[in-house]
């Protein structure tokens, strides 16, 4: 594996493969280290989630440091739910000082979904403004207009959801993120390929695919129940009924889940404008090497 940074790979136009690691709900560094083994020498970067679904977990920055010690390139997720503009800027400077450039700027799930629904949210900035803030910081100035000498070296990511309504608004928002200075985009997991293709067509029509690297999300599932849950309970997700039927019929749902993920990746790779795959093996990190191999993601 080359030692190029994610940013260099984006600039060189390499087909990217990133994955996701959820820090534990405890102070266990060993739990993080254990998961890193599944990603080593396979992925170009691994997202470290930040209190995903508003459930308190080990800090994403701290977990990123552990991941880097294990030889991974971490992509630190950061949400606006928990931080105001002071904290966001200070955390970005922290990443700069640690030499971890990759940050995924998110609005964040509402606290109502998590284990502290009575919490006060922040949402001082939204994700577009957060991306702009990060872009401004790496250019050497704070939101206040003050300037600094040692600028943080940042590679800024953003998220996009091709499936939530309405499609046109999704493309507008993507355009805003690009204008605000984003380097790469990771999408929500794809199950509905038809809808994904129409979103991608709209993105191409707006010429946005040439201005940023779009990494498309894929999430393998273990059972039909998990898929039904995703369809009904996870907001902004589309799962076609046929896919659920296919999973239900399968003799070995786990194997079928892997096959679905691999097929989806192969179809996505053929879509014009796609620059990479972002695998989200939720609570199933151990499957990453196998899917990478079967979907031919290693040779890129």
């Amino acid at each position: 594996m080359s030692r190029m940074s994610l940013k260099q790979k984006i600039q060189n136009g390499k087909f990217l493969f990133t994955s996701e690691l959820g820090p534990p709900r405890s102070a266990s560094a060993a739990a993080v280290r254990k998961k890193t083994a599944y990603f080593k020498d396979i992925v170009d970067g691994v997202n470290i989630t930040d209190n995903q679904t508003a459930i308190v977990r080990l800090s994403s920055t701290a977990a990123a440091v552990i991941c880097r010690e294990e030889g991974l390139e971490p992509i630190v997720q950061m949400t606006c739910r928990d931080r105001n503009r002071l904290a966001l800027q200070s955390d970005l400077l922290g990443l700069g000082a640690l030499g971890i450039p990759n940050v995924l700027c998110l609005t964040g799930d509402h606290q109502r979904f998590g284990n502290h629904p009575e919490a006060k949210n922040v949402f001082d900035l939204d994700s577009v403004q957060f991306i702009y803030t990060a872009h401004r910081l790496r250019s050497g100035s704070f939101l206040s207009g003050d300037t600094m000498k040692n600028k943080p070296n940042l590679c800024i990511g953003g998220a996009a959801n091709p499936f939530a309504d309405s499609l046109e608004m999704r493309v507008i928002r993507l355009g805003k993120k690009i204008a605000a200075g984003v380097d790469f985009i990771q999408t929500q997991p794809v199950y509905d390929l038809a809808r994904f293709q129409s979103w991608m067509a709209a993105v191409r029509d707006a010429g946005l695919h040439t201005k940023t690297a779009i990494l498309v999300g894929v999430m393998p599932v273990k059972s039909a129940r998990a898929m039904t849950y995703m369809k009904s309970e996870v907001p902004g997700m589309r799962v076609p009924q046929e896919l659920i039927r296919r999973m239900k019929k399968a003799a070995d749902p786990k194997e079928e889940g892997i096959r679905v993920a691999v097929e989806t990746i192969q179809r996505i790779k053929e879509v014009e404008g796609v620059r990479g795959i972002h695998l989200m093996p939720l609570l199933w990190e151990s499957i990453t090497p196998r899917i990478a191999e079967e979907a031919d993601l290693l040779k890129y």
Partner: protein
Amino acid sequence: MTREKHITQLKNTSPAGAGRETHVPPLDDLLTKHSRPIKPGERRISTVARLLEDLVKVPLFRCQRCGECILSHTGFICSQRCPKRLRNGPCGGTGEDGTCEVYPERKCIWYRIHRRARRLKRLPLLNRIENIHNWELEHTSAWLNVFNKRIDPPTLFLKKSKKGNAQ
């Protein structure tokens, strides 16, 4: 380095800087431009002006009194009714048929804004990146803030310039 010089540099380093889509304000526009402390006198006048403004805006638009009104950009639907108070478009949680993820009994406010803006032919205004909210203006009178040049005046009519810039 002076601030102006710095902003020029910022614009030049923007990856989307050259040839990007229109309707995007220059980067420095994202900050509240005339950020200066509100003196007690102005605050008192603002309270009175706010009363008048509330009479119009609260019943008509369910105004959330952010003091930095962008109603004219959002199809005359108050975007601040969003549970995350997003100013730049919907989060990723809008469900099918445009339901809000936080309160499924409601419609996503940005879903409604998009539909209204399309109907009123004001879609280009949705491409604007809105200011980072100045919380000092919270619960002050937006009308007075326009008068005092603290915030931009509303865009009531879309001008058609050569570039198609609708600002």
